[in-house]
């Protein structure tokens, strides 16, 4: 029994000190809380700024300005034997000249010809090939403007700059204003972004080749890494005796998951290309490199999915006489499948966004054609983005952002599917 009276000698000074200390501690508490909120707010702001700036700068690439010009499909320019080889360029240029009859100087004419995109020629050709009855007539055709003129219309090139500091001359601006006042200029959705292959001209450059390349590469990756990954996971989790060898394999897999992706590129270059002489820039080699990289990223979640299945299921199956493989194939694997698929999808999504190892094996060549075979030269979507990002032309910046938006929306879709799969089918035991 302590003497209470001695401990209760609170004088006001001590109480004030205690109150001050408490206040200080509460201040520290609020400060700490604020740091946490600030960190989260910061991360959120960064995310919004990152996505916002990319989406914002991609917007110009999704549309393109066209001008409606009267083009004479004159019979003397048409090649009767080979329609595609007709002088389409001549017809387009003639159309420009008739519209601007006062442009007579050679140098001015040359500028005038650059007013339209190179794709305008293709437009006229495709139109006439599809409608042969147009031959001999003069038709109003909607033709794409060149990228610089398009940027002026979108306000991305400042027309108030002094003439020697902007890429568009005064004469071009005059023609443009005339066309706009005649109501001939219209803005259309840029289908070329999805239907064309790569090009040096930003307004013609599209993602089709890269999308096909990515698809072929990922197909190889899936075919190689999914069966191997699942089989390895089954073996390690369900069958393997716990000995030195399996322990070594386990440590190995965990380490492989942390090896920088560029090292896989070096491996691919040394082994697949220099040793086995497989073709450079081919989806086959790219897919194999990505498969080796994805393998541990499939094995680890697959093993986790197996580990989460309760042993009672295996014991029950064994109890009614199933063999070990039957236990796995008939009971454990179907139950673990949602987890396996989720892991595979996420691993493939990572592979789809990977660039560095593919640069090593040459999958960033300038390729116009759409790859059709896993041994033909190809590029992939992230590598295409990298190449466009390195292009100094102004209009390519918007194209690059548009490519990123396409890539991100694909990844979002795929990851969303993975999350849905997990939510829908996952069982908690």
């Amino acid at each position, binding site marked *: 029994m302590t003497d209470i009276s001695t401990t209760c000698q609170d004088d006001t000074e001590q109480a004030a000190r205690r109150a001050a200390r408490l206040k200080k*501690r509460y201040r*520290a*508490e609020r400060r*700490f*809380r604020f*740091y*946490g909120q600030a*960190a*989260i707010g910061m*991360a*959120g702001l*960064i995310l919004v700024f*990152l996505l916002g*700036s*990319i989406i914002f700068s991609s917007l110009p690439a999704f549309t393109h300005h066209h001008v409606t010009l009267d083009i004479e499909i004159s019979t003397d320019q048409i090649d009767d034997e080979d329609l595609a080889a007709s002088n389409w360029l001549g017809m387009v240029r003639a159309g420009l000249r008739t519209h601007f009859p006062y442009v007579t100087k050679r140098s001015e004419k040359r500028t005038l010809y650059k007013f339209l995109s190179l794709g305008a020629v293709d437009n006229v050709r495709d139109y006439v090939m599809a409608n042969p009855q147009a031959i001999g007539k003069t038709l109003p055709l909607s033709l794409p403007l060149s990228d610089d003129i398009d940027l002026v219309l979108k306000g991305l090139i400042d027309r108030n700059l002094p003439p020697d500091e902007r890429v568009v001359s005064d004469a071009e601006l005059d023609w443009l204003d005339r066309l706009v006042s005649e109501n001939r200029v219209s803005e259309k959705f840029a289908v070329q972004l999805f239907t064309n292959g790569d090009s040096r001209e930003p307004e013609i450059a599209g993602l089709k080749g890269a999308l096909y390349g990515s698809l072929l590469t990922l197909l190889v990756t899936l075919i190689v890494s999914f069966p*191997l990954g699942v*089989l*390895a996971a*089954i073996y390690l989790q369900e069958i*393997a005796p716990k000995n030195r060898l399996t322990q070594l*394999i386990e440590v190995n897999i965990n*380490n*492989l998951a*942390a*090896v*920088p992706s*560029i*090292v*896989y590129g*070096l*491996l691919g*270059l*040394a082994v697949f290309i*220099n040793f*086995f*002489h*497989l*073709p450079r820039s081919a989806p086959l080699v790219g897919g194999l490199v990505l498969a*080796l990289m994805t393998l*541990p990223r499939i094995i680890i979640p697959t093993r986790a999915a197996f580990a989460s299945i309760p042993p009672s299921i295996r014991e029950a199956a064994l109890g009614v006489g199933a*063999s070990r*493989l039957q236990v796995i194939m008939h009971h454990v694997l179907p139950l673990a499948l949602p987890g396996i698929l989720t892991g595979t999808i996420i691993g493939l999504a990572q592979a789809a*966004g990977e*660039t*560095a190892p593919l*640069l*090593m094996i040459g999958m960033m060549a300038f390729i116009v054609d759409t790859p059709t*075979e896993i*041994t033909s*030269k190809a590029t992939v979507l*992230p*590598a295409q*983005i*990298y190449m466009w*990002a390195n292009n100094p032309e102004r209009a390519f*910046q918007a194209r*690059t952002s548009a490519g*990123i938006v396409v890539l*991100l929306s694909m*990844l979002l879709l795929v990851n969303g599917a993975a999350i849905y799969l997990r939510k829908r089918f996952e069982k908690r035991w």
Partner: protein
Amino acid sequence: MSLSSIFICLIGLGAFSFFFGSARIRKLSVNSDLKLHSRSVYHGSFLLICTTFVPLILLIIWTGVSPLIIDALLEAFLRARLPEADTGTLGVMIAKVKAFHVGSINAAFVDDTIRAAETYYASLLSQFAFGRAIAVIMLALVGFGFGFRPLAVRFAARHAVERVSGYVMLVASAIAIFTTIGIVLSLIFETMRFFSSVPVSEFLFGLHWSPQIAIREDQVGGAGAFGAIPLFAGTLMITFIAMLVAVPIGLMSAVYLSEYAEPRLRAIAKPGIEVLAGIPTVVYGFFAALVVAPMLRDGGADIGLTLSSESALAAGLVMGIMIIPFISSLSDDVINAVPQTLRDGAAALGATQSETIRQVVLPAALPGIVSAILLAISRAIGETMIVVMAAGVAANLTANPFESVTTVTVQIVMLLVGDQEFDSAKTLAAFALGLVLFFITLGLNVLALYVVNKYREQYD
């Protein structure tokens, strides 16, 4: 036949043999008094394995080896035409023949030898492709016949199938080991060749990096310098900047989300941060090079600082952003693993929540957090696209984050991208850098594992 059509053909044959085998055994069992030893699925699978297994292996080996043989034959062909040419010239010619074959060289630029060689090359290609198709399909048919014979009601198909699947699984899990061996061997092999022309000490301790090899023999400064210290310094600086961004933000958001946040905020913020982890690095690279770097340069100019447009700061900041989710999710896990009893005990002693976190929870979670930071450093060192797009190419030995520096990964990419002959010291240097990178990241991972295992408290 192309590779994919043979593959599809083989899949078709496999499917056919599976259904054929199981249908066949069902028919046999109906007509027989004996009980089936294995269910029909296993007989089908047995036939499937017999039909496709050997051809598949042959297809893989053939595809791997035939380019080697074709190249050797092509070289012999060219050597017969040009007996005096040395190996280097022949290599260039072989490359030319292939380029002409795929149509990337105009016909006007090649001579008759190349043209003849191209015809020969094309015939070789078609012969090998034809031979491959024949061999694979023949083998598949032979396998089918071989597997068809033992099919009988009492045949132990399940045992056979299970034995084969066991081996296949073992091989599949051994691939992980082969990959590691492949990485280590290929890196070490090329690095040894590199060190036969450049001394190890110069590479590891040299202060000057300029890998340009002379085009002419007598060119000034053409020998190339391979001192990697500026690259290591640049890598360290960018990693350090990245950690300055990622550790406070990642750690504090993990603490806030696991200790303070109400479930609703947690449900939004946690996936939000994970989104950052799903963004491909090339996107971060673009963001760093075209958004952050110009912003920093203009902002720096306003307050009187001169920033290089490829400053280490821009690359480091963006790399830090990329690392945030990595640190935050790993720390979140270890903070959640600290038992609630510790928090309750601290609260019972009158500690405020932040005092509990700082003096109880964080010390308890420290080994996990340290290992998360180590793993994040390893990730930052190996990161490539951000620095390739946003950091410099020239090797500057500087401690000023506003200047441009280069990193190990940037140099690997720069040395290997583009067409160049494979045996020069320049390309081999990339493998030496790759080896350094591999061992540093491996060391950091092992260290991270060690820290967790050594210092983790077992509370349960």
